[in-house]
């Protein structure tokens, strides 16, 4: 059993270090070796074709933050349905990773947008605002978890916020802004000729996404492990409290 735990933890560390090294590698690769974009194609012209290189981090960040929000949603839903400690572990990990990767998206995005659009933010854009709001919800959950006593009622409330955020943001975003978007189309699927992206760019993006996924998986394993241990410690402390009373 102990051996299993050690392996589990070690795989978390290994994947995290591998992912971090990969991100550094991909960053260097994207800045130095990734192919440039055609400034203009039939689909239109890029305002700042060189600035696109930040998308090798921005897009994988966005996908991984969406994975994090899925973990958060899973944790919230399972907590609501089963109220199991395991669901709460996923809830905690999902909110932590949602903040990490969400902040990655909303800091890298405006850097590119400033160069490409001439303004860092577009309030009318669905994806941009969705990620910002989901990150705000995740940030709220992280701060709230830290500041609140760990009671079932607080867990219920926070998981309600998790469900609320996940369910609400896409719906309101769709309801209010889907027809007025300036955000580029989904790059991988609708690539090449329309927006001037070559298959090499697509390959680079896939590599960077793969690397980011390794980092995401490593962090998720480590985070889950950490919160399981925290629950165990909390249980032990409660046992000690009971002994102190008797």
């Amino acid at each position: 059993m102990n051996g299993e735990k050690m392996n589990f933890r070690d795989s978390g560390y290994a994947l995290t270090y591998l992912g971090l090294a990969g991100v550094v590698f991909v960053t260097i690769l994207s800045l130095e070796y990734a192919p440039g974009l055609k400034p203009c194609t039939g689909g239109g012209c890029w305002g700042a074709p060189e600035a696109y290189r930040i998308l090798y981090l921005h897009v994988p960040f966005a996908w991984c933050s969406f994975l994090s929000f899925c973990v958060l949603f899973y944790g919230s839903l399972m907590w609501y349905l089963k109220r199991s400690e395991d669901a709460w572990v996923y809830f905690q990990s999902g909110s932590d990773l949602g903040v990490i990767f969400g902040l990655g998206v909303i800091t890298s995005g405006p850097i590119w947008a400033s160069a490409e659009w001439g303004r860092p933010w577009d309030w009318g854009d669905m994806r941009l605002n969705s990620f910002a709001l989901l990150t705000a919800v995740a940030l709220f959950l992280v701060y709230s978890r830290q500041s609140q006593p760990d009671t079932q009622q607080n867990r219920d409330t926070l998981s309600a916020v998790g469900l609320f955020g996940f369910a609400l943001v896409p719906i309101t975003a769709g309801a209010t802004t889907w027809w007025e978007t300036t955000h580029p189309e989904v790059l991988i699927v609708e690539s090449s000729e329309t927006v001037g992206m070559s298959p090499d760019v697509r390959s680079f993006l896939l590599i960077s996404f793969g690397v980011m996924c390794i980092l995401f998986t490593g962090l998720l394993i480590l985070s889950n492990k950490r919160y399981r241990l925290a629950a165990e410690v909390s249980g032990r402390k409660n046992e000690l409290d009971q002994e102190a009373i008797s």
Partner: protein
Amino acid sequence: MSPRTLLSARGLVVDRGARKVLRDVDFSLYEGEVVGLLGVNGSGKSTLLESLAGLHPMSGGSVLRNDRGFETTVRDSEGQRGDISGFGLCLQTEGMSGDETVFERIRGACRVAGRADNSEALNEIISEWGLGHRANDRICKLSGGLRRRVAVLSALVPVALNSEQSVVLLDEPSEGLDQASRGLLLGWLRALKMRGHGILVATHDPEVITACDRTVTISETSELTSKIQESNLEHANLPGPSAAESHRELVAWNWRLERRNPIDTIGRGVPALVALLLAFTLSTDIVRSSENYDLLAALILTPAFITAIVTPAIIKRLAEERAGDWWRAMTGTSSRGWFSIMGVSLILPLPIIYLSWFVIADDSGSAMNSDVMLWLWLFAFVIIDLSVAASALHLMVSDLTRAGAVAGILLQLVLIWPFLQMTSALTSIMSNGMSFELALGEPIADIAIAWLTVVLLWAMAVIIPED
């Protein structure tokens, strides 16, 4: 014939974080009995009593109420909720707002329990309990002992006025009461028992225990030990039952407190006026003479938007001495929706939005000024709705134990979308005049979408936390 069960818990499991406070508890309260709930500190007496009132989420089991021969669920671990109206509840902390008067509180407790309030009878009871000279004083002006008397009376009177057998849940009712008040309490407990009501009292007080027909001791491992005993205490004379009435007491309660102490209106109005002054400063001649009305529209709507997202005063009122828990228990499953509606900024958005228009943009030179004037009320209407949604979001945050320690504003960010939608609509009106074409990008469609978004937000913020 065995006595009827009024309230019961079956297999109740309640957690506090990783700690199980109640484990597989079975308990029944029968008609015509006073039960003393005993146990050492931390054994879960208050948690059991409050769980019976439906206040705590549970990991296992259910709380059931016998309502005219039918068993109805008060709350269970599957998330089912039901109302437990017409009962009496006294929490360990008072559960009252300091801005209520003594008379209002007791009358309100009767009304929310569905009893008609006979002022004469209520005044008699208040005088009997030594509060006659304080009847019109605010509760915040009373000493701790007097406040406790009011809290206890708020639980006892509605049941005394109820002709049908009901339930009273009292948590440490004698704490802080003087000897005379204790005597009254014990007499009332016995009298309520004589009328067939069931009373559960969590207590450490040996004197209160003498008024009980049965004691139930809860151990640290949640095992209940029941012991029958005899009580020879005299019973008091209670007022006769009053007619059943339905009131919207919750709304009246909030309105009364706002008239007495308008912290909601002031709390919303001052930030709005500051925002208006800032908006006026920002709306330079360059902005006003520009043909692009985006910024101007946002500046006009911002002060009213701010009135809507400010934390409503009802949050503070409900947080005071667990007043919110008392109201939640008394009003049942509809409480969250009502709380959010009561938290609305009803008065300010309309005048603020017109004031903003006159101060910021009336001389903007837009050819469509008359159209804007004619339709600004529609934006005020959506902002009033938006404040209901904002209020529901604030309520979600206020469910947390230390609500003051979290950044609730992060959740309010989602309201920016309807705000932007309204900005877009106002820009269109300022540029091209009002249009009733139901097409995307047209003002009426933008306003309708903003309104629907707000309604959706409100519904989700009210429904999801209620399971």
